[in-house]
């Protein structure tokens, strides 16, 4: 196995995902297969090849620095599960002293 169940669980935890044991086994196998394939690609000599993060040979388009407010506060909050006085609300998060 290229990847352990613990690695998959850890990755799932980082992505806030939960699944049952059967799915865990499936994902572990599938992710392992992907890594085996990557290892095959890694056999190629790419010393002088620039890494590709985009298949298009383009550089970034720009926007002018102009303000254009497209939606209202009401629009912004309309799908929020929790809201109060123009704020989104979430279960309390706070970093405090030990």
């Amino acid at each position: 196995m290229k990847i352990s169940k613990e690695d998959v669980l850890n990755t799932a935890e980082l992505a806030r995902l939960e699944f049952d044991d059967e799915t865990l086994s499936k994902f572990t196998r599938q992710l392992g297969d992907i890594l085996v394939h990557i290892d095959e690609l890694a056999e190629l000599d790419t010393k002088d090849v620039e890494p590709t993060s985009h298949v298009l040979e383009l550089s970034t388009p720009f926007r002018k620095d102009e303000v254009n407010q497209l939606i209202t506060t009401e629009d912004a909050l309309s799908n929020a599960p929790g809201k109060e006085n123009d704020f989104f609300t979430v279960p309390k998060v706070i970093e405090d002293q030990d």
Partner: protein
Amino acid sequence: MEYEAVIGLEVHAQLATESKIFSSSSTKFGSPPNSQVNPVCLGMPGVLPVFNERVLEYAIKAGLATNCEIAGKSRFARKNYFYPDLPKGYQISQYDEPLCLRGHLEIDSGDGKKKIRITRIHLEEDAGKLVHEYSDFESHVDLNRAGVPLVEIVSEPDISTAEEAVEYVKKLRTILKYIEVCDGNMEEGSLRCDANVSVRPVGQSELGTKTEIKNLNSFRFIQRAIEYETKRQEAVLRGGGKVVQETRLFDSQKGVTFAMRSKEEAHDYRYFPDPDLLPVVVEEDCLEKIRLSLPELPEEKLSRFADEFNIPKNDAETLSSSRPLAEYFEECAKHAKDSKAASNWILNEMLREVEDEDSIAEFPVKPEDLAELLNLIGEGKINRKTAKEIFSEMISGGKRAGEIVTEKGLTQITDEDEISSIIEKIIEENQKEVERYRNGDTKLLGFFVGQVMKATKGKADPAVVNQMLRKSLEER
């Protein structure tokens, strides 16, 4: 055993653009919650970020002004983590291909100039703001700040004391304000700083374990937090303990740093190139254009002021420390016959009348009008005392010096005959004092000067009066 501190700083500076880095919402501070949010900054599905050209221009300026190399090609990456102030679940930042690399600044340290190297400057978006005070069970989220453009300026661990750290941030702030890419307002969070601090025995070459103190938003906090943290780590090592690598916060009330409790796993941001954004390419001619648009920087100004206007280095340093002040001085010196007098007046009389450097541009006395006042002193038409009165009147009334002088008949009496007759009269009226003076009580000279100045309503040149009085009193 002696210990020394090794400090590196990460300074976050908000770029002074009108709109956000990837969306057209305003960056204005202090607006009602969630009034400056667009689908892009809210992380709505199906939207695409589009890069603000001014962000790139400002970041390049910051890089050039801090002696960095500007990368011909840089890239945006996603920094992945979950927190309610980050609607997309990732922050768009730059990771292994930042925009600016290998710069440096020079600061004044206790023993002369010291070079602080800058590792990199990269672009990123700010997160939203969380308010915890409104409820015991919920946090309130305002996303107006989400997507505001920032540069993160990362220094090498070249800083050795809290004082040097403060000097470095001050210097950086002055430069960023000078080139007008950041307003430098630390209270509003436009400039804030994380400090990486470690200590080691003097002479040891490898670094000790570091802690990171987050979110220091004033020079005082930077100073106190680093001082505290250095002492704390030293005490841990002296007691035979080990410093734990962790993130800490500074409690300004108690003056201590404390470990942030974090339920997160060890940070694993899983950076990867943002597929929504193409590489940022900076062409040579574009770079050259920006380079040419940079204003003269504080250090260049300092030495030019000292040479061109023949003023002491210290004065030149103060005058060049802020751009509005430097511009005010230069304009005034251009019109004043004596640039040294202009420097002195601005440093001694004017600065105490302005609240902060940013209000200098709105100072009621224009630089050329101050020059006119100074020229009147230079020509002997008014004395310094009168000039100070006129100056206050110029501040409150908005009139020019010449007008006030004519209106109030404040022209200095330099006519020796006129002064002489006043002196004679005063000597006659004060025979008793004259007698005492001639018997050796020479301190009474001040009394006579005072009388003459009173009789001339302060318009006589005190130097002339002094000299003539002494002569009259002594020759009889």
